[in-house]
């Protein structure tokens, strides 16, 4: 498969746009999944995954043939997702005072009794429940957990994709896994 993709990329570099179609259809599910896991929203995931492929196409000449294409496209998708998450950060804070009130903050606007995890499991599908738990992880753990289990990537590959020392990847995957273990324990 690696050879097939390598050959397609050679054709794309020569200007054969149609060759890109097979590359997209080969990687679309993995790339979409990374974006979905990171963003937790199918609309945004589609948007960012599409953007990732377009970026890959327009920058195909900067892709080094000796490296794995999957690493490259996952890297683009992960970085675009992280950018989107950072832009999405709310510009209001829960503990800010609500205008026109005295001493009332946004916490008072939230419903006090959230359903217990067990109840939620009953109403939500397993898929979306797990997604919700991944979503609740800090971004730095979320990206690593996503990459580790989306395509069974090795720690070495994750370190290349995220441009991060392998030691950091190890620490974060341990912490992320522990955090998820606690969240999914009662499932």
């Amino acid at each position, binding site marked *: 498969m690696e050879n097939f993709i390598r050959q397609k990329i050679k054709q794309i570099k020569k200007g054969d*746009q149609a060759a890109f179609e097979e590359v*997209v259809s080969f990687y679309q599910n993995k790339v979409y999944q990374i974006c979905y*896991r990171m963003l937790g929203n199918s609309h945004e995931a589609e948007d960012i995954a599409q953007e990732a492929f377009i970026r890959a196409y327009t920058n195909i000449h900067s892709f080094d043939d000796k490296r794995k294409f999957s690493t490259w496209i996952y890297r683009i998708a992960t970085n675009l997702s992280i950018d989107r998450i950072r832009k999405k950060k709310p510009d209001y804070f829960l503990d800010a005072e609500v205008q026109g009130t005295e001493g009332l903050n946004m916490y008072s606007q939230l419903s006090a009794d959230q359903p217990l995890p067990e109840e939620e499991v009953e109403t939500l599908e397993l*898929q979306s429940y797990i997604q919700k738990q991944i979503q609740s992880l800090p971004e730095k753990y979320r990206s690593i957990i996503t990459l580790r*289990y989306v395509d069974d990537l090795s720690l070495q590959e994750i370190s290349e994709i995220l441009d991060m020392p392998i030691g950091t990847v190890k620490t974060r*995957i*341990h912490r992320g*896994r522990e955090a998820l273990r606690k969240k999914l324990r009662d499932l």
Partner: protein
Amino acid sequence: MSCPNKYVEYMHKYLDKEITKEEEQVLKEHLMTCEDCQGHFHELKRTITLLQSTSNIQAPANFTRNVMASLPKEKKRISYQRWFKAHPIVTAAAIFFLLIFTSLSSMWNENEQLTVSKTEGIVIEGNTVIVPEGQVVQGDLLVKNGNLQIEGKVEGNVTLINGENLLASAGEVTGKIEEINQVFEWLWYHTKKTVGDLFTFTIKGF
């Protein structure tokens, strides 16, 4: 959990396939005796199974088609650039010719006023250069940006650059008559002249 941290460390190493044989042995032996760690390990493995079992998320149906439809059309400029990079010698030659062309065309546009190569025995009336009747001009005659009217005789070649008309019917020209009205013709003339001069110079040099 009262067990040393190293066991949890080994569990993660095991899950990332980074554990050594010895460490695996130590972990196995410990798990057989410690229920807490067994539970921990089981939960970790279950977490991973859950993650993997739900990781068959599919891209939307028309995803590939949408991507292909929104790809930018390859810009002409970019392909030119790539071509130039691939053919440096051709590019250098093209730039060289462009420079020559621009310098010559600027020379063409430079002097719009009437120029005559010699004034002896010639009458100039406004924009028209007249060789009067009975007058004999020795050697070549060159008129630029003006009309030429020959009533007498020119013993040599006549060149008219950017002139409106050549009225040589009444007169006589012994040499060639050349009329140049186009930039390209003028360029050709210039090139011929330069090459000719160069040859003369070389021959004289010998």
